[in-house]
Every structure is written in C-alpha cells, then in structure tokens.
C-alpha cells in the first residue's frame, strides 16, 4: 500500500497503542472474584444483590421478559425475549468488572468488588 502517508502510520500506531493500554488497564481491573451484583433497569436506581446467594431474579417489566440467575457465585441471564439474545449468549460471569448487558431492554448487570466506591468514582 504505497498510497499511505507517514501520518497514517503514526495515527494507526497511536490508536493501537491507545487500545492496548486501555485493554491492559481493563485486564488489570478484572481479576478478583466479585462480591456484589449491581443491577440497573433503564432509568431506575441500581439494585445491589450479594453474589453468594443462590437465587433467581425476575427483572421483567411488562412485555420485556428477563430472568437472571445467581448460582454458585456465578451470574447469568437465564431467559430474555429480547431481539438479539446477546445477554443470554454472554453466559456466566463471576469476576469483578465483568458485565452482562441487555441493550434492547436497557438492563445492565455488573459484578462489583467488596467496596463499590471505586466503581462509583469511575461512573461519575
């Protein structure tokens, strides 16, 4: 590709570096087992549930069906009637910082560490 200029290579190099640094940063954050599960439904205030209990949570609102399972310190979306089923296919999560998102139904689930202070600071 002799049509590329030097500026292109510099730009691509810095973008890849940027992606790499962000990736390492998030890898560094995701290591420990989580303690709390933060559940956000659309605009409502987040709900916090401990990850130690075995429970099934019905997050359905009207026609929007979502069923979340917490089992053996793992969290997964058992069922959803959303269009893309990405939340169900996401599978089990258990580590701090991991998340399940159901975008069509505006639901997000994040696993937090023991103190949720650092994550709140990030989302400010």
């Amino acid at each position: 590709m002799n049509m590329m200029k030097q500026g292109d290579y510099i730009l691509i190099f810095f973008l890849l570096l940027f992606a790499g640094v962000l990736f390492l940063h998030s890898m560094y954050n995701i290591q420990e087992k989580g303690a709390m599960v933060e559940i956000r439904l659309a605009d409502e205030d987040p709900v916090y549930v401990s990850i130690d209990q075995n429970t099934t949570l019905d997050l359905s609102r009207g026609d929007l069906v979502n069923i979340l399972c917490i089992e053996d310190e793992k969290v997964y979306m058992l069922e959803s009637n959303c269009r893309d089923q990405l939340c169900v296919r996401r599978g089990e999560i258990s580590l701090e910082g991991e998340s399940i998102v159901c975008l069509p139904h505006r639901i997000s689930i994040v696993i937090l560490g023991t103190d949720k202070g650092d994550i709140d600071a990030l989302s400010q």
Partner: protein
Amino acid sequence: MPSANNIQRFTRLSLFVTMALVLSYMERFLPILPAFPGIKLGLANIITFIVLIMYSWKDAFFVLIARVTLLSFFSASGISFLYSMSGGLMSLMAMTFALKYLGNTFSLIGISVIGAFMHNTAQMLVLAAVLRSFFIPLSYYPILVLSAVLTGILTGYIVANLHRHLEKLGQS
C-alpha cells in the same frame, strides 16, 4: 424552477443513497463474531466518504441522514437508530475536518481511520448515556478502537482505489 443541474444532483444523490442502503443491509448477512456485538465493517461509510471527497459535505450529510433513517425502517429499533446516527454524524464531521485541514498529513486511508475511530467513540458515549454507566462501555472500548483501525483501513483502501478510478473516468 428545477434546473438541469438540480435534477442531476438529485438523481446522483438518490443513487448514492441506494448504494449505501444496499451496502448496510447486505452487511447484516455477513457473519459477525458473536463475542463482539456491534462490530461492523461499515461498508456504507465508503459511500459517505466518496461523496464527501468528490462532491461536498452537504451531499454526504444528505446521503448519511437518508441512509440511516431509511435503514431504521428495516430494523425498527430506537436505540440502533440513535447509534447509527450519532456515529455517522460524528464520523462525517471528523472526516470533513480532516479532509480540509489535515489532507497533507494523512492519506484517504488515514482519514477513513479517523472517521471510523470517531464513529465508534460516539457510539461508546451513547452506550454510556443509555446505560448510565461509563464502566461497561469502557471495558468494551479497546475492542472498538482496534476494530475501528482495521475497518477504517479497509474502507479507506477501497475508497482510495475507487476515487482513483472515478477520477480517470472524469466526473459527470
């Protein structure tokens, strides 16, 4: 009074909108990696970019708005419309600026990478607003940046070649 010039421009824009629509619709049938939702090749951006280079940002703006609006009739999802629109507008703004002021520094491929990067950055910001959390989109952002570089190079390469050949033909 519609002049011959206006009719020509209107016809040309309609053709570009059609091509962009077909490209974004066809793209859905390409296999995507299930582990990375939301990552696309952005083939429709080829059309936006070529219109921007050969005509004007106004024409490119029209093609973009028409494409995204019409495509939302096929998918019928408010959020995906918001994504495409914010990403497309941000990308067009960045590419217009880069083409005008940074044309000596970057080739068309570099400008396409800038556009793809800004597109994905805008989408990350919309995702953060929709989920009311910066944490989740941020953990996904590195993959978006990486994909922006790769798809930006691809579409930029196509645009550069297409532009070269169209120049040879001579504009109508």
